[in-house]
């Protein structure tokens, strides 16, 4: 097992993974009603193809991809469409969702699985991935089929399966690797065939010895490497740099350096779609945090609510202060426990009131720890000041658009300043100004 070189910066938060990593994935039985948002991916909302009152089968397409970047949505259960209306969404916005009443029959739509899908040609593989609504399940949600087609004239040297899971608390990828190594390898092989990538590398966290043990027998020609155990080791650019030694150019794409990165859960979903004919209607979610009675990983149908997940893990052990979807470093705090799980929900964190307190910001003392940890090699303290003073040209000049929003600067700041928030503000303003015709 190759241990790869490190990357610049990064932090070492307490990994807090132990409480959820040791027990096997539990299956959450589908609740009575599911709220399935039309937006579970990067890009445009899918367009509903069912109406209120329609009967739907499990796995049936209920909304079609719409626009250049989009993905279809499938029903996670069989039942009846109760409503199509805006509902609370992981993003914090209100987004149209198809509300389905579960009839409990688990009646599947006809599935077109293939016993040996690697025999399929590249075009068919990509088509089926697209039809199955597979998107990047590490959190970004970019439609996988689109990523698998590099621009003309580009050959991909590497397909990297990202299993670093550098976020504290999250263990869903680790459990998938331990319990479904064949699926992940099959998914990787299918994506390599589809994209023409020459070599497959699975990148694991240094600490993932159990996952490594599960994979190594079956890996064959696939190389397994371990990443330095620091955050954000699972960042796309960081993984590429560590595995290939290549640096993705500023404002550029991974394919420019011959690399394609896909998450472990995405590979698992691809394998299920091609072999079993099951579209992307369920995923593994880590449910943990100081207010969760029994932290664990759950296999959850898309559209199950936060409340369903909390109840399945024994309810709140103490009053929660903050409930986060998608990881402690980059996830979004939710205000409504009816918010449903979507394709990009890696993790649900219920923090106790004590864990949720936001400390007061004090003056910046220019200690430059944010500079030391920034993986984009920016000067976060400068960017914060530019954002605060609305000096957007300076913010651009100092690389605001190169910020990957990992939050390492915020984490390390001894003055507890909201650095990332001001950098996000500057980025938004810069992008908005670029769009506006002058």
């Amino acid at each position, binding site marked *: 097992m190759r241990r790869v070189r490190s990357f610049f910066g990064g932090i070492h938060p307490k990994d807090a993974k132990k409480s959820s990593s040791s027990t096997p994935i539990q299956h959450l039985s589908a609740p009575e009603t599911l709220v399935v948002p039309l937006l579970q991916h990067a890009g445009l909302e899918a367009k509903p193809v069912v109406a209120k009152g329609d009967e739907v089968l499990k796995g049936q397409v209920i909304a079609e991809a719409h626009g250049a970047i989009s993905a279809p949505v499938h029903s996670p259960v069989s039942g009846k469409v109760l409503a199509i209306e805006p509902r609370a969404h992981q993003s914090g916005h209100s987004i149209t969702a198809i509300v389905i009443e579960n009839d409990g029959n688990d009646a599947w739509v006809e599935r077109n699985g293939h016993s040996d899908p690697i025999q399929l040609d590249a075009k068919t593989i990509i088509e089926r991935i697209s039809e199955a609504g597979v998107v990047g399940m590490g959190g970004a949600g970019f439609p996988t089929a689109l990523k698998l087609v590099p621009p003309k004239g580009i050959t991909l040297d590497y397909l990297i399966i990202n299993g670093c899971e550098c976020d504290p608390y999250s263990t869903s990828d680790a459990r998938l690797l331990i319990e479904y190594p064949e699926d992940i390898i099959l998914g990787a092989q299918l994506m390599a065939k589809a994209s023409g990538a020459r070599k497959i590398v699975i990148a694991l966290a240094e600490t993932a010895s159990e996952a490594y043990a599960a994979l190594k027998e079956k890996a064959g020609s696939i190389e397994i490497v371990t990443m330095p155990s620091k955050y954000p080791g699972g960042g796309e650019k960081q993984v590429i740099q560590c595995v290939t030694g290549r640096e993705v150019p500023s404002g550029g794409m991974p394919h420019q350096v011959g690399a394609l990165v896909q998450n472990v859960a995405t590979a698992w979903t691809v394998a299920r779609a091609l072999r079993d004919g099951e579209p992307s209607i369920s995923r593994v979610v880590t449910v943990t945090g100081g207010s969760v009675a029994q932290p664990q990983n759950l296999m959850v149908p898309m559209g199950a609510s936060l409340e369903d997940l909390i109840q399945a893990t024994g309810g709140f052990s103490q009053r929660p202060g903050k409930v986060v979807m998608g990881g402690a470093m980059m996830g979004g705090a939710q205000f409504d426990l009816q918010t449903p799980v979507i394709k990009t929900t890696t993790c649900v964190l219920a923090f106790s009131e004590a864990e949720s307190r936001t400390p007061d910001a004090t003056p910046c003392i220019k200690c430059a720890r944010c*500079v030391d940890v920034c993986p984009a090699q920016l000067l976060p303290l400068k960017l914060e000041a530019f954002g605060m003073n609305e000096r957007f040209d300076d913010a651009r000049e100092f690389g605001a658009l190169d910020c990957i929003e990992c939050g390492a600067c915020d984490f390390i700041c001894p003055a507890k300043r909201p650095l990332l928030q001001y950098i996000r503000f500057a980025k938004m303003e810069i992008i908005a100004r670029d769009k506006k015709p002058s």
Partner: protein
Amino acid sequence: MDDLKLIVAPSPHIRDTDTTEKSTFATLIALLPVVAASVYFFGLDALRLVLLSGAAAVATEAIFQRLRKQPIRVGDGSALVTGVLLGLIVPPSLPSWMVILGAVFAIAIGKQVFGGLGQNPFNPALVGRAILTASFATAMTTWRTPFDAITAATPLALGEVSGRIPDLFFGSVAGSLGETSALAILLGGIYLFYRGYLDYRIPVGIFASVIVMSLITGQSVIFHLLAGSLLFGAIFMAVDPVTTPVTKGGRWIFGFGVGLIVMLIRTWGSYPEGVAYAILLMNAVTPLINRWTRPRIYGQGVKTSE
């Protein structure tokens, strides 16, 4: 769960446990051996100066924060650090009212007029010392020997080398309170480094350029490293984050610059000692150094096959 009120805040949702207060209090702890050594060598005068200076600095900070209608944040310990540092870089026989005045100026002119913590371009304690030196030249350059309190020139003013090195190391020479014992200063420095509050680049840069300059000019390396306030300045003054570069390359340049200016002043200047002015001068060019040493942003200037 109906009455559940959830906090909504932007990511990240976890934070490191370190705080500004912890770093300032670590500095105060690191100064304890120095204060102890100065009391040992200079008696109660040392305590008098350090306590008065510290108290005056904290009081001035509180008054200014009140006047500026800001939250009173003297609890962060930063004003206390400035006051204690000033107390340790004045002659042991300095009158009380002078050190109080120095501390008031250090906080008022050195820090608060620029906007308080984090905003001052110059090290406040050194601003206080510079003002005292300009105002009370005689009192600020009247040194005395430890224990017997006889007025004497500092080793640097005498320029003598032979037989003084152990004295310089342990501290039984004439000089400012805190600057005399290299041993006590190094103890504090090791503690700060161990706690992660001391970036080695600036002190190492200072020592490196002092060594090189001593060799070039044919002077004693050990003498120049141990004499005067070089060690104290390198470990407690030149590493003040607020007034030094934020880039790693910049910190090296800052260190080299301080060492170079110290040796220029010591060798050719009319002052026997130049650490305070060397640091203040490099403080002045810190914004420039930051500009010159901006790190290459990840992915910029990268060539691809396209």
